[in-house]
């Protein structure tokens, strides 16, 4: 009895440690990647290859003075960064890294992850409203409408995949795609010929849900100074930052599990946790690549993309898959 509690505790702590380490070192990867795309080195002064940059940044952020603007709603102001970071880290508990490595597997894993992701939208609203700053309110209003609009096509696509597989358990979703890349959900199959389109829709929605460019209106640096985290210095800003990167890792893991076969090897030979990690990091590289190439969309362009393009296409795909599943 106590051994299983100990097991569970170790597993949860390990998941949280993986999340935190990733969030910290993804900053390093993004800055180096952005630097190379822009033909400059990126951080290379602190430590070899700049690897000590995240700890130095963390120490700097913790040493800064925590300022709360006068007249701000103290409770909301302090809760918002924690609310941004905590659900992202909690979602790591369900994600299976391989056949045997999972902190706590649930049979409604997908639902749980999306439930936690919706809490992130609330954090943005608290941050913007609680800072008593017009720029913050405008940015958080934009970000919340963006979050809500892009959850819909994401969930419709997930329903399509779950319908094809028949289970909401993350391990079951991966097991249904075992055996080489022709079995992955990415490939069009008889019961669902538009699967690559679904993959693209889910990819775009993941970019939009995590507030990454080209959909980063919430933190539009050149228009609204810093968006919803204008008034946050020191660790509040640090928590928002790390929460965003943890969300990115979760987004990449979800794409891998739902469409790219999880820990499956492309040729079906040696499945394992290294394939899972390789796929996540390729996807994260593409997130970074896209961020540093494209400018920002406008708010109505963003909402038009979701409501007028993504939702009709994903609904059509859902109906098509439902119909074809009955036949094949």
């Amino acid at each position, binding site marked *: 009895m106590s051994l299983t509690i100990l097991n569970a505790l170790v597993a949860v702590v390990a998941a949280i440690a993986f999340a935190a380490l990733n969030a910290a070192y993804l900053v390093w990867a993004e800055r180096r990647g952005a630097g190379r*795309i*822009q033909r400059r080195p990126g951080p290379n002064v602190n430590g070899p290859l700049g690897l000590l940059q995240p700890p130095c940044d963390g120490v700097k952020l913790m040493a800064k003075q925590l300022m709360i603007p006068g007249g701000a709603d103290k409770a909301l102001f302090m809760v918002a960064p924690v609310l941004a970071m905590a659900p992202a880290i909690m979602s790591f508990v369900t994600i299976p890294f391989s056949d045997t490595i999972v902190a706590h597997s649930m049979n409604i894993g997908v639902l749980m992850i999306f439930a936690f992701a919706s809490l992130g939208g609330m954090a943005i609203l608290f941050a913007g409203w609680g800072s008593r700053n017009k720029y913050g309110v405008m940015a958080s209003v934009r970000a919340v409408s963006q979050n809500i609009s892009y959850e819909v096509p994401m969930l419709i696509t997930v329903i399509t995949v779950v319908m094809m597989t028949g289970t909401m358990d993350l391990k079951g979703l991966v097991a249904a795609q075992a055996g080489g890349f022709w079995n992955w959900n990415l490939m069009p199959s008889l019961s669902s010929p538009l699967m690559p389109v679904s993959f693209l829709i889910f990819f775009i929605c993941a970019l939009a849900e995590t507030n990454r460019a080209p959909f980063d209106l919430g933190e539009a640096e050149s228009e609204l100074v810093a968006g919803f985290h204008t008034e946050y210095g020191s660790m509040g800003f640090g928590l928002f930052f790390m929460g965003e990167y943890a969300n990115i890792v979760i987004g990449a893991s979800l794409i891998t599990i739902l469409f790219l076969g999880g820990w499956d090897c492309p040729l079906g030979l040696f499945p394992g946790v290294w394939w899972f990690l390789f796929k996540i990091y390729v996807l994260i590289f593409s997130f970074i*690549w896209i961020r540093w190439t494209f400018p920002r969309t406008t708010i109505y362009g963003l909402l038009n993309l979701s409501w007028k393009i993504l939702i009709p296409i994903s609904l059509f795909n859902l109906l098509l898959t439902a119909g074809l599943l009955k036949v094949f």
Partner: protein
Amino acid sequence: MGAYFSEIFLGLKSLVIGLIITFKEFFKPVVTVPYPYKTIKMSEKYRGHIELIEDEEGNPKCISCGACQRACPSGCISLASKSVEYEAMVKGEMKTKKKKVLTKYDLNFTTCSLCGQCVENCNFGAVTFSKDYNLASDRKEDFHFDLLKRLKERNS
């Protein structure tokens, strides 16, 4: 209906072209020079702050006429000189003559705009631009140059 899909398709194509360009730039070498581990050679005509030029004996060529001081738009040059008597052969007999010797030549670099009027208006070629660019400090006094002292330090 056709316009709807063609817009989506052409839009995606332009995005992919942009991604390919940045991907190619990812593999090109880095342009930044890692200063201060490596420095770049300054061009010959680079304009740093002015310096005095000396003649063959090591004395400054400046005869303290004040043309540079009058020409400067910002008033950053200040000179002082003293009269000195010396003996010279004139028509076969020794006579005492007077000449001016430079005692102070200060440049206040905090107001200098590097326009070059001082260098151009000097008829004796006594000042020129230096190549000093590494001038960072946190005290104003470091930028009040005593050019006569710098000349002596360069010669010794």
